Each structure stands twice: as structure tokens, then as C-alpha cells.
């Protein structure tokens, strides 16, 4: 979770550099490679709107599914967590059934947000959440439906 955090704790990386770094990681597929993310609109100089996908983990009901998410990094981004919303319908405990919003109260990473956390962390943590015992066997809405 705090990959590279030891270096970053003394130097505060400005928002734009931080997002550019994440953009590059997303493009190059650096990281554990089970999630993918990128910017929606390359012309948005504020780099606010992002799309992410999570590939459903093995040995769960989610296996083989591709979940799309929308992440919105407001101007206070690395200080405050982005808002995270599932675009593909999913049934897991930390996601609002009506809106697809990931509810920070039920998702530790957002509730205890630290500025070293990245969108990649959010996606991988959500993927872990899908594989958690209380989520892995839940009945899922049909694939290809959206919130």
C-alpha cells in the first residue's frame, strides 16, 4: 500500500505530478497488472475524470467478468480520496446498490485515506474485497448491465 511511500513522506508531491505518475503507471501496466485505469479525457488539464477496470478475481463469482469504474479526482485529490463509483453493476457489501458508489464507511481504504494511496491501490483493494469470503459467492446481476 505504501509502495514508494517512504520517499514521498518527506517531499509532498503536487497533485499534477502525482496524477501524471499514475497516468503513466496505468498506461504501462506497471503494478500487479490485474487492474487497469486511465484518464477519460486527455484534454482535461485538471485530470479529474478517470476510468478503471477490475478483472474479477479467480475462484469467485466475479471470475472472468470485467468491472468498469469511474473515479473522480477533485482538486484536493491526494489529500482527499477520489469518489469511486462502479459503472458495471455489482453486488458487494461496500457498494451502494442504487448508485454504484463505493461507500467510504464500508471500505477501509477510503475511510482511512492517506495521501500516499493511489487509484491503483483503490482498484486492487476493491478486487481483494471481491474475493473476500463475504463477497465471493454473492449472486451477481447479469454481466453487461450498468448503474
Amino acid at each position, binding site marked *: 500500500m505504501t509502495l514508494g511511500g517512504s520517499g514521498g513522506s518527506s517531499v509532498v508531491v503536487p497533485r499534477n505530478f502525482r496524477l501524471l505518475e499514475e497516468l503513466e503507471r496505468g498506461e504501462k501496466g506497471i503494478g500487479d497488472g490485474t487492474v487497469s485505469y486511465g484518464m477519460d479525457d486527455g484534454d482535461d488539464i485538471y485530470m479529474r475524470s478517470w476510468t478503471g477496470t477490475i478483472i474479477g478475481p479467480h475462484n469467485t463469482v466475479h471470475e472472468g467478468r*470485467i468491472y468498469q469504474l469511474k473515479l473522480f479526482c477533485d482538486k484536493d485529490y491526494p489529500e482527499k480520496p477520489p469518489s469511486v463509483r462502479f459503472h458495471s453493476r455489482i453486488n458487494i457489501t461496500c457498494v451502494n446498490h442504487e448508485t454504484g458508489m463505493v461507500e467510504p464507511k464500508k471500505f477501509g481504504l477510503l475511510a482511512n485515506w492517506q495521501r500516499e494511496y493511489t487509484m491503483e491501490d483503490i482498484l486492487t483493494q476493491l478486487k481483494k474485497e471481491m474475493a473476500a469470503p463475504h463477497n465471493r459467492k454473492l449472486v451477481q446481476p447479469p454481466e453487461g448491465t450498468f448503474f
Partner: protein
Amino acid sequence: MGADGDSSGVDGGCSVTVHIRCSNGSKFSLQTPLDVTIGAFKVVVAGNCDVPAEQQRLIYKGRVLKDEQTLQSYGVESDHTIHLVRGAPASSAPSNTPAANLGASRTPNVGVGSNEGVGYGGAGSGGAQFPGLGLNGLFGSGGGSSPFGTGFPDFSQVQQQLTQNPNLMREMMNMPAIQNLMNNPDLMRNLIMSNPQMRDVIDRNPELGHVLNDPSILRQTLEAARNPELMREMMRNTDRAMSNIEATPEGFNMLRRMYENVQEPFLNATTMAGETGNDAGSNPFAALLGNQGSAQSRDGSTNLSNTNLEQTGASPAPNANPLPNPWSNATGAASAANTRATSGDTRSPGIAGLGGFNNVQDMDRMLGGLPDPSSLNQILQNPAMMQWMQSLMSNPQFMNQMLGPQMGGLLEANPQLREMLQNPEFLRQLSSPETMQQLLSFQRLFSSQFGRQQPNQQQNQGGDGTGAPNNMGLDLLVNLFGGLGAGGLGMPNPSNVPPEELYATQLSQLQEMGFFDTQENIRALSATAGNVHAAVERLLGNPGH
């Protein structure tokens, strides 16, 4: 990597290197011009991996790439990574209709071929061929919801007749039409996948998906169905083994696990199918269960009533809860489900074996669940079983598939182990009775050690009135046994090496995942014999649940 060299001549102009990352972790690079469409690009990708173009789903920057767009339009540049996932073949919804038609068009064939006077038996008999695969649900619901449904007066009768008349079954199985059907895995898969209920079951149990994706398994199951002696032998043996397992305390838990994971979802799905047909009587699966129960069980009457009890329990709310727990009512339901699990397995010898062994963990679980080695001996020495194991083992592709998802972590960390498992010679050795015996003595040793843990667990279970399965302890036990199995086979003497060294790669993996407590990690890893997946589960399960 290698592709850099050989494809440099393809297009000197604007071709760039793009990395493809598969969902199973493997990675490769290829050269491509950026102005190709995604559709064409997929064909190129298909040449480098085993996923056909129409099943590929490519993801880049969090977006699923559409066939008609180009790489350029998504902003792909040199050195970027695209993720590849194997998806269901496109157009799963429209395939519903052709599948139903197919089923119908086969009906007259079958009826004509089997001159036993069951001309109307097409759909019903189709279901009965695959007792264990749950295709009954497929054929049955097709019949139930289609106009043909009303045409077939009593499915259960047909099925009963079929199961009691092995000759009829064999005749049917030997028919070219059916053989063709069986030899065409795509068709089978389509048939299965086009049924929403079946899909749901498979979605919920990815292990089953693997079974269905392997044509050889389907064929083996049918082989067994075709040979009545083999089938009876298997049934009898499974039955006996089950009763042995059942008699031991740990075995009971094991059966419960098997039941919860496989049997119940099947049942749910097929009950649902019955509901859509608006007529419980036309649910062939339910009827089949009932019939089979009374026809061949040791304890016919209770079994039948239990079956009914189970059905009524499951049918009102099949969807609200994925796994309605029959264990909540400790005594009554426990015996019901227990016999049910047994009858389920006797009824479907092929798939019971497959279901159990498809999943390596299950296999270990099975081994682990047998403090009484004689029953395992019995299973292992049964010629049918041996034959089956042999054919299984001699198919390295299937072995890989089976090992892939379960032991991915372990294998990744131990490339030698993977190599070993890909060597058919080794597999043959592995499946030899001597090795099995050796393994068995390992198990015995361990089971005596764990003997004192079991009563403890029994108690917990008794007190667990809500029925939330007390999996933690079981998991632990299972993992330990699982680890033993893998460890005993893969790494002959792991005991001399300190765990930090032995599991160095796994440890760093866990660290990366955010588990920082090294001691705890080591403990989890040694308990799971280095299976990262299982270790993570253990680590996550420890504090909360």
C-alpha cells in the same frame, strides 16, 4: 521479447511494441502498427496465446476496447500495456434460441433411434444422460418453458426408466448423433451457457466452469454412462466410500463442504428452472432426484422425504440467498443434507469424482477428511477409479487447467514444480498406487496429530446455531492437509529449510499485498505450504471472522 526480432520486417514504418498482459499473469509483447482495428489486432494476439479472437476482451487504460476502433483512437503508444481477459463468446443472449432449437431438433433423432417405445423421450433422455452435469436443468427447462413442455407428459417416468435400464442408456449413448454432440465441445458449452440458470451456477462456481470447458471430461462422464458395469461399480463404490466418510467426524464436515459448494447451487438452479416452467412436476431434476433417491438409496424412504423437504426449503426463495443453509437446523436438516450429499454423489458418479478431483484443494480436502485410511484405500484400489485417474493424469493439458487457478501461486513460486507437473511421466508415477499409499501414510500421521482438534471443532459446530459454517477451523485443517499434499509431492524434504528462505518469494508477494507482519506471514505460509492465495485468505480471515 522474441517477437521484437522476427516481426521487425512486417512493417518498418509506424509499428510499435505493445505488451499484452493476460489475466493469468503471463505476459508477452508484439509489434503492431497503431492504425489497425482492434478486431484485426485481436487476431494477431490470438496467434500468440490460446484465446481465440472472438473470446478476447482487451482492456486499456480502464476501458474495454471495441472491435471497430483502432489502437490509435484509444491513445495506445509504444511500450504501453494492454490487458487481455478471456470472456464468454459474444452474443450469449441470441444463442438462447438456437440452443433451444437444437435440443428440439435432436428429439426426433433420439426417439427414432431408441426403439424402446419412448418416442417422446428425447428431451427427458437427453437430461438423463448427464446426471451429474446438471444438464437436466438445461434440457428440462428448455422443455418446460417451450411449447414442447406440455407435449411430454411425465419426464420423471422417462428418466426413471432410463436410469433403471442401462441398455437403453447405452444404446442412446452409442448413437452417432449423441456422439457427435459430445465430440463438439463448443456446442456443449453453448448449450450449457445459453441456459441462464446453468450460467448462474457456473458463475458462482468457477471450478465447474473449468469442468465444462474441458471436452475430455464430458466425454469421460459419458463414457461412464455408456458402460453400465463401470457406472454401477462407480456408484457402488462412491456410495460405500461416502458412508465411510460420513461415519467419521471430519468426513461429515467435508461432505458438507462438497454439498455447499456444488450440490446446492445445482439444486437451486434447477429448482428455479422448475419455477419458470410454472409446474413443479415438470422439473425433471427434482423428479430425478426423488426417483433416484427411492430407486437406489440404502435408505429409500427417508431419503425421499428429505429430498422433498430440501426442495420445499429451497424453492420459495432461491434467489434471495445464494446458499440457503440447510445446516441451521442442526439435527434434522443435517441428516437430510448428509444423505442428500450422498445420494447426489451416488447418482452422479462421473461428476462427483470430477467435482472432487477437479479442484486440487478438494482432493486434498478429501484426503484430509479421511482419518480412516481404509476407505481411501478402497477408493484407490477400485479399478474404475484407477482407470479414471490414469486417463486424467495422462492428459497434461487438463492437469494444467486443473492446477492453474488453484495452485497458481504455488506454481509461480516453484517453476520446477510446474515443470514436474507438466511431465506426463511424473504424473503417471504420481498416480501409481504406491505413491498414493505413501501419501496415505503421510495423511495418517497427520490425522493422528489432528485427532484432538477435531472434537473441538465438532463442538463449535454444534453451538453454531445460526448455521454460519465454522469454516475457519476447517480451512485451517484443510490448508494444512492441502499443504501436506502439495509439499509431500512437490518438495520432498522441505523441513530442513527455514521457512523464511523456503517462502521468500511468497513472503515478498505478501508484503507487496500489504501484509507487513512477517511473523504472521510466515505462520500463514507454513500452514498453507506456501500457497499465497490460501495464506492471504487465512490472514484476512484471522482477525474478523
